[in-house]
């Protein structure tokens, strides 16, 4: 009875322990491959990336070209062979708009998360390493921003700036760096006490050298996990803002603003294709990022199989 009833968790640990010594990347890949959903998700994301990057080539129509022959009397055209995802009330091809909209979601997702993670890591490092008034100042600013409901902050901020992909990403980053900063600061407070940090200080290493060579590399795991959670969250936030009318303005297509007008079209004309396809793409992309993040976490840190 005993050999077979080893829990999957323990079995995993045994397998990891028995693995012959390999390069780090090879080990990473072996573990990552076991998470089937993460591998499938990576494939889906690569496909979405490729399509977004090649949008002008793969999109069957100009995303902003209206066609009143197609959308007669302002009624959205239902899916057909020529327009597999149908058209909107102006006769614009939905498939082409979804392809171009992918660019918005991906760029905002990566840019906002990247800026938030880098900024959060920098100020978190300063707070955790320098302490004293720098720590005080940074953490109090974080407290203030954390008291805002993020969506209200974003709507108020975006009401006042020219809405471009970059400005939207930066505004999202401004309200998202605090948790990373807290996390890095917490890690630093612990790591600062470790023997190897003491040793580095004892042999006269400079502050930047201690931060970059001793502290940051050891805090990298949680930072990567935060980043992998941040991207899907940001994509959801951007699409919500666009849906509420605080994102990129028409005619530029984004998945969120495609859904903005779809409500009345769906109610008046039963145009289900105007809500199903853009929303499905958001959900699929976010879901894939979440699975990918889950796989990364398992592969990067075999000790913490997330429960």
């Amino acid at each position: 009875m005993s050999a077979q009833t080893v829990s999957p968790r323990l079995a995993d640990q045994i397998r990891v322990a028995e693995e012959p010594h390999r390069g780090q990347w090879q080990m990473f890949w072996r573990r990552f491959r076991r998470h089937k959903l993460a591998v499938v998700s990576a494939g889906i994301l690569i496909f979405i990336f490729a399509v977004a990057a090649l949008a002008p080539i793969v999109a069957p129509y100009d995303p902003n070209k209206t066609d009143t022959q197609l959308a007669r009397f302002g009624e959205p055209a239902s899916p057909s062979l020529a327009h597999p995802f149908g058209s909107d009330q102006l006769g614009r091809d939905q498939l082409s708009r979804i392809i171009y909209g992918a660019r918005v979601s991906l760029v905002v997702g990566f840019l906002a998360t990247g800026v938030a993670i880098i900024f959060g890591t920098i100020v978190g490092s300063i707070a955790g390493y320098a302490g004293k008034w720098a720590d005080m100042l940074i953490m109090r600013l974080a407290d203030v921003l954390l008291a805002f409901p993020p969506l209200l902050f974003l709507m108020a901020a975006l009401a006042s700036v020219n809405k471009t992909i970059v400005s939207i990403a930066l505004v999202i980053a401004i309200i998202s760096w605090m948790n990373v900063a807290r996390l890095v600061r917490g890690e630093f407070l612990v790591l600062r006490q470790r023997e190897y940090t003491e040793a580095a200080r004892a042999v006269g290493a400079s502050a930047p050298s201690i931060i970059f060579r001793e502290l940051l590399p050891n805090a990298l795991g949680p930072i990567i996990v935060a980043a992998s959670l941040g991207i899907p969250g940001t994509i959801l936030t951007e699409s919500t803002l666009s849906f509420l009318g605080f994102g990129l303005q028409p005619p530029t297509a984004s998945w969120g603003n495609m859904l903005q007008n779809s409500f009345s079209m769906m109610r008046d004309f039963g145009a289900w294709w105007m809500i199903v396809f853009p929303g499905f793409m958001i959900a699929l992309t976010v879901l894939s990022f979440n699975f990918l993040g889950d796989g990364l976490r398992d592969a990067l840190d075999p000790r913490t199989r997330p429960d």
Partner: protein
Amino acid sequence: MTAYIIRRLLWMIPILIGVSIICFALLKQAPGDPVSAIVASSRDSGSQMTQADRDNLREQYGLNNPVWVQYYDWASLAIRGNFGDSTRSNQPVWDVIKTRLPNTVKLAGVSLLFTLAIALPLGIISAVKQYSKLDYFLTFFNFVGISIPQFWLGLMLVYIFAVELGWFPSTGMQGAYVEDGTWPLIKDRFMHYVLPVASITLVGIAGYMRFQRAAMLEVIRQDYIRTARAKGLSERVVIFKHAWRNALIPIITLMGYIFVILVEGSVVVENIFSWPGMGQLAVLSLNQRDYPVIMAIVLLSATLILIGTLLSDIVYAIVDPRIRYD
């Protein structure tokens, strides 16, 4: 403990001042002001305002003063609880909020009850039957739940259950025409709750379920659970009496976070279902540049979030004697 609570309450003051300054600065930064919104609406009603009219209005609203003077004027009234008048409806801000806040509280409260009633038991089952088929299914459902945009779920529910099947209404809190009598009235109100509550609940379940599962897994590995089993207690008693009680403690830490979720959820869902609450008011006011109302909404939500966090810390310390604040 009392000293700790007082210190935390006092600490809320500078935070709220910070929130108000940032919010005020953001709004003043915006192109267009309440006057331009008024000008636009007067144009819609057929009469063009003269430049002199606009200048007068700007003067009346104090929009020609330097920003810090404007902030000081606003703050010196706000500190006495006077948030001014809405520039959109000319009513005092509190009156506007008073008519809308209860609607949001009702929607959010009902949704929260359903969310917890469904999510917590599922989290427990998932943990007790870890690595079972059911656990894997719930884990997958959980990933889907955190990945679906709430507004899309709302739109899909409207399409399926309101447009296609026609089972439930999709706008507002009540029907335009309701038959006389108590039952038709209750039924009408009830039907209006179904889709908005479902939109908030279905998305909310995912996060709580995951959290409860993790907390429960933590607890059932503890020695006192093994002891309880060793005593020969039935599995039901062990799980529900010994384990669940302790696994509920981490849920308390979500309390501050719950307010964030409810504020955010209400903005999205109220706008889809034309629910006359705070979330709809927020979007309306931002579009109309109704600054006094926005300031009040932001400060109100920030206060709720801060109090929620404080309450969760206090309750946490009460139920878990190992936690000490000083």
